[in-house]
């Protein structure tokens, strides 16, 4: 049904666009600053658009800091986390969804309860644990505490719940094991949600700050979000370089989001299937 284009409709749409532009302005401003020369940044006669676009700040950051190392750290740990999260959440979600076993309700409740735990407060205990496992300053040390994702388990459960029961029953009659059912039926039917969850998990893993911050003590093990708080080799006036570092830190994820926007959006929406 087509709504008539009234004045109020146009006004409201315009307002929405203006509000959206204001909302995204800080991001734009950081981007614009990163492309200005340092002297232009603090010039009293500043302008919204860079008077002269320069990538000097970016080059300076790339050459003078270990940003490539940090990128590698972030990529490897984020991938590691994503893969492991999917690998352990999926079977658990399936079991909760389809199988009846003692402790099922306890497990479900435990998964829900874990959302409420203030992870930041457990940092010391985790630190000591990871140290005892000799994993300080390693990728594994960064990865392991983060592969617990109650949300993924619950989402998988919700989605597996929706798969028609007949499929499973038919396979059971054919003598299939639960693993075969999981891998041959449930997973293929849910690639969409798997992709979506993987994307969201990757983004969250990339952006995690406090745990990598506490537990890495070597500069070459920093992840990107941690590293940008410690980049201080630039002296004099450094605002453009600061923004350049921030943009470099956010860039890859922003790109992933823009490319996979639909999938990421779906993923978040799927979690609305959770009834707390």
């Amino acid at each position: 049904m087509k709504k008539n284009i009234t004045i109020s409709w146009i006004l409201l749409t315009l307002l929405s666009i203006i509000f959206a532009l204001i909302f995204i302005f800080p991001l734009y401003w950081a981007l614009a600053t990163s492309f200005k020369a340092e002297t232009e940044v603090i010039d009293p006669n500043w302008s919204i658009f860079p008077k002269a676009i320069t990538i000097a700040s970016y080059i300076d950051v790339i050459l003078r800091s270990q940003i490539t190392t940090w990128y590698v750290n972030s990529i490897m740990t984020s991938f590691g986390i994503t893969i492991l999260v999917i690998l352990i959440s999926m079977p658990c979600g399936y079991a909760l969804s389809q199988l009846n076993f003692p402790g099922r309700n306890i497990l479900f409740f435990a998964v829900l309860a874990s959302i409420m735990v203030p992870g930041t407060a457990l940092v010391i205990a985790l630190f000591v644990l990871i140290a005892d496992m000799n994993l300080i300053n390693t990728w594994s040390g960064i990865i392991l505490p983060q592969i617990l994702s109650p949300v993924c388990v619950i989402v998988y459960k919700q989605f597996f719940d929706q798969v028609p029961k007949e499929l499973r029953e038919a396979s059971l009659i054919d003598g299939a094991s639960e693993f075969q059912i999981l891998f041959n039926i449930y997973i293929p039917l849910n690639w969409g949600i798997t992709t979506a969850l993987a994307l969201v998990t990757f983004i969250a893993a990339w952006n995690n700050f406090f745990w990598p911050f506490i537990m890495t003590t070597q500069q070459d093990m920093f992840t990107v979000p941690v590293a940008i708080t410690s980049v201080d080799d630039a002296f004099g006036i450094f605002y453009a370089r600061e923004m350049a570092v921030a943009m470099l830190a956010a860039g890859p994820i922003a790109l992933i989001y823009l490319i996979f926007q639909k999938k990421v959006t779906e993923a978040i929406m799927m979690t609305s299937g959770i009834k707390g």
Partner: protein
Amino acid sequence: MKKNLISFFCGLFLYMIPVSAFAVTEVIWWDFLGGGDGVRMKKLIDNFNSSHDDIQINATTLEWGVPFYTKVQTSAAIGEQPDMMTYHLSRFPLAVPTGVLRPISEAELASVGISGDRFFPANWEAANFGGATHGVPLDVHANVMYFNSDMLAEAGLLDENGDPTLLDGLDNFMAGLEKLDAMVEYPIGFATGNGGMVWRWWYSILRMMDGEYLVDGKVCPGDKCERATQVLSNLVEKGYMPSETDYGSAKAMFASGQSAIHINGVWEVPTWVDLRANNELGFKFGVRDMPQLFETEATWADSHAFAIPHSDKNPISDEKLKAVLTVMSWMSDNSLFWATAGHIPSNKNIVNSVFYNNMEPNADYANIGSNMVTEPFSPLTGVASPTYDAMQNYIMPAVNGQLSADEAVQMLRDDLESLM
């Protein structure tokens, strides 16, 4: 047979050479030196590495302040500590009782030619807090006043030697600022929003008034702390300093010529030197000791030292210890280059040398040596101590006019005395 024997031993010999040549001891080094400091220290580290085949320094720079000291503590507790690190001497009274610093014996120091008489007495005393040597001093760094020579000349505030005339006494200082205020919006570019910066200037002023910060378990006896706060809040109120300004912005104000004076530590000397060398500083700058506003002369100072973290779980091996001591000794011997970062080397021999005496701009503030005041020996003071927090929480807002000096100092007293 003889030939075979000879070739056997030759082979053995040849086999052993690479083994010994590649017996490099790696020294894991942590520091918190960034900015102009950091660049110079990296150069020193590079110089060491290229001149030593058997020892290589593997350096990491971590965030200054609480994050650095916390990481030292946590990593030492689990045996992942660095072999050596930089440490602020002002923090020793806090650190030594926690056992995080490994004492270095006289014999160990002597093995690389270090003894106490190499250093300035006050420095050495601080490094020996707790009855043992816990660090090898590298430098002393103090607060100084940077100024825009061109602007001061224009305001008529430079004498015939090029020395600023507003450094002597509060009245002179205020009069000079008034003149500068007619020229620019904020004569002093100062980080009024940064607790650490406020502390350093505030403490200097307190000591200029002959005031005390910590006495017999009491914080800020008398009313001098309040008056020191008022000196600074007055500057903000009169519009001579911008309020609530962060560290980077204060520097930018000076660098861009928006402010004529910049109060900061000596560690920013390389910043201005390098900017000037790259033609990015549009004026001639000078640096002098802080304006001495009252009867007594005082300038806040702290000191960097090299220390060895102590770990029960993973104590340092003898081999590493030897390498670390070698590094410390080399750094001390070569601290003339470190002086280009603005610091005053702790090594007396270097400071008394003709090279140092002629170094610019260090020579301009060499008189600080006689009026330096360090923070009181207490676990409540020093970098990343409760004092720094309290400055940020109470005195900084008072300087910026958010509450009265009396209220702020009282809150400071309550906070710190509750920790005693």
